[in-house]
């Protein structure tokens, strides 16, 4: 149960839009994509997000609208209805979703587009792709990715959920924790151990699991932020899976997981770029109108220099993220750079949202203000997708 009431915040268009400069050499189609996503976010998401926060549910119609606009297929092949764009498109998409100020919405969509269904495109058989990708791209089938367990988070190799051969198929037993889209989603991509004798990362396989198959049960979890997205613990109680549930090669799932993490981390760079810029915009609006000490807060050098300093850091983190996305798009080695993005951008985001909340004074502490929600929603980003501490180790290994 949530306590307290959430009031309507001001949902007007900002008087002083703050937009960082467009990165150089961004292809024309991605600039056009940005415009379309921005319009969608401003007309379909921002005005409705509070209702979704109340109900903990993003209506299916929203996914279907995004599907019709092609937003959900940009990482999938053209033959199944996608547009086969690369990581730079994900970066732009994530950045514009981030500007919605509803982190739960952003997370729910990106889990679907960039963190779960991409496994089918990466490792699926032609039959699996033909069956699953079209409804995923249309927004009719919503996907989740289930890797994390209660005792295995960033330490993926420590996961314990088991899939055991049973005739032609498999039996799945175990549980997963903190899974986005698991309550209202349809298709879960589950990482399970298929060879208990193999060490750590070897012996893990991926499975396509129907969310409503017998033996699958979920418990919705209450969160600190991301209230409109559904997060759950999933229990697999001897779930029988057909032979074609296996996604990719048996015992080779770990590599797909690590590969997809790279994309997820670029998305986090995009989310942070969008959320930092929006938090600064929202705060500029506030401090330029809020009267104190005989003028606006903006008239105080300490206030405007604080915001300028946050804007500098946010712009630097954003550039790093665009560089990493560009390297990934060109197929170049970039694990270190992508890890740097994941280690840095969410930490900068924390500094920005809390700095911005501070400038809102007591208002920023109140439920219903945009910055209050943004501060809550930002909290998870230094943790999920590889905690800062784990990411720094990935950087250190490559120094």
């Amino acid at each position: 149960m949530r306590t307290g009431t959430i009031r309507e915040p001001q949902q007007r268009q900002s008087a002083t839009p703050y937009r960082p400069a467009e990165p150089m050499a961004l292809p024309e189609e991605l600039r056009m994509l940005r415009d379309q996503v921005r319009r969608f976010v401003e007309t379909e998401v921002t005005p409705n997000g509070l209702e979704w926060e109340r109900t903990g549910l993003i209506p299916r119609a929203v996914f279907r609208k995004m599907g019709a606009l092609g937003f959900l297929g940009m990482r999938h092949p053209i033959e199944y209805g996608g547009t086969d764009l690369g990581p730079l498109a994900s970066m732009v998409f994530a950045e514009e979703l981030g500007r919605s100020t509803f982190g739960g919405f952003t997370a729910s969509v990106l889990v679907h587009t960039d963190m779960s269904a991409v496994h089918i495109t990466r490792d699926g058989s032609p039959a699996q792709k033909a069956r699953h990708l079209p409804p995923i791209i249309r927004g009719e089938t919503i996907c989740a990715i289930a890797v994390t367990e209660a005792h295995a988070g960033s330490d993926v190799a420590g996961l314990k959920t088991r899939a055991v051969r049973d005739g032609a198929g498999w039996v799945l037993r175990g549980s997963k924790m903190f899974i986005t889209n698991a309550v209202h989603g349809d298709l879960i991509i589950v990482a399970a151990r298929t060879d208990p004798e193999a060490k750590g990362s070897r012996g893990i396989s991926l499975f396509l699991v129907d969310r409503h198959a017998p033996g699958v049960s979920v418990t919705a979890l209450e969160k600190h932020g991301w209230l409109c997205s559904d997060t759950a613990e999933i229990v697999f109680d001897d779930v029988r899976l057909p032979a074609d549930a296996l996604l990719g090669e048996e015992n080779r799932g770990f590599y797909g997981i690590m590969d997809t993490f790279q994309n997820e981390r670029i998305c986090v760079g995009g989310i942070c770029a969008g959320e930092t810029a929006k938090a600064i915009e929202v705060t500029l609006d506030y401090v330029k109108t809020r009267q104190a000490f005989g003028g606006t807060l903006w008239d105080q050098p300490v206030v405007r220099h604080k915001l300028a300093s946050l804007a500098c850091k946010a712009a630097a983190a954003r550039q790093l993220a665009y560089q990493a996305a560009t390297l990934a798009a060109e197929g170049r080695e970039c694990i270190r750079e992508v890890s740097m993005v994941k280690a840095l951008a969410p930490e900068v985001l924390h500094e920005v949202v809390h700095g911005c909340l501070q400038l809102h004074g007591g208002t920023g502490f109140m439920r219903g203000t945009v910055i209050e929600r943004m501060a809550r929603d930002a909290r998870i980003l230094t943790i999920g997708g590889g905690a800062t501490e784990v990411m720094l180790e990935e950087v250190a290994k490559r120094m």
Partner: protein
Amino acid sequence: MKVLVAVKRVVDYNVKIRVKSDNTGVETANVKMSMNPFDEIGVEEAVRLKEAGKATEIVAVSMGPQACQETIRTALAMGADRGILVLTDAELQPLAVAKILKVLCDKEQPGLVILGKQAIDDDCNQTGQMLAALLDWPQATFASKLELGVSDARVTREIDGGLETITVTLPAVLTTDLRLNEPRYASLPNIMKAKKKPIDTVDPASLGVDVAPRLSTLKVNEPAKRQAGVKVATVADLVAKLKTEAKVI
């Protein structure tokens, strides 16, 4: 029937306009640019005509620097078939634009030309009317509804007193008002398809049009800042001030 739509690249409606420090114009460096919203409505109307089987081809025209290609590309992503970019770095005033469009109409022979009623940068509201005069075609400006027949068009116009419905024979020039339609999104697959649609580039001289400005801008200033208000103690004070200072009652 071929439909020609004019699309202008303007400062995005969401941008806070700044006057250049030397007062010669408005700052456009590093400013987000978009298609003029009224032109977007024009493209949408043309695409709807095509979907209804009333138009066979949509040609989108823009004029200005190379970056205007992106504005044309947006029109192509919405459903236009091909583009014409009139490439020039010169300042283009409405008369020059109308003259260029006239030459393009002579060449393309469209049955209908659709323009925005005005562009949100200079707010001139002249090009469509000038084009109709140059072509000696009927004009239907400020359109909020269009019913296209075979040889004529019935157009509802937004005028001061309300709505006026007129019939114009084709070919004709139409300018769009805000309520004509709500422009669609360009879907991502259509954005990708638009990359393959042709855009011809021509320069004004090759069309035989002298684009030299006929008007010169003397100075551009920011609007005066709003003065601070005053508080009055009583209703009587308020009434007195409204009478003597504001002179509104």
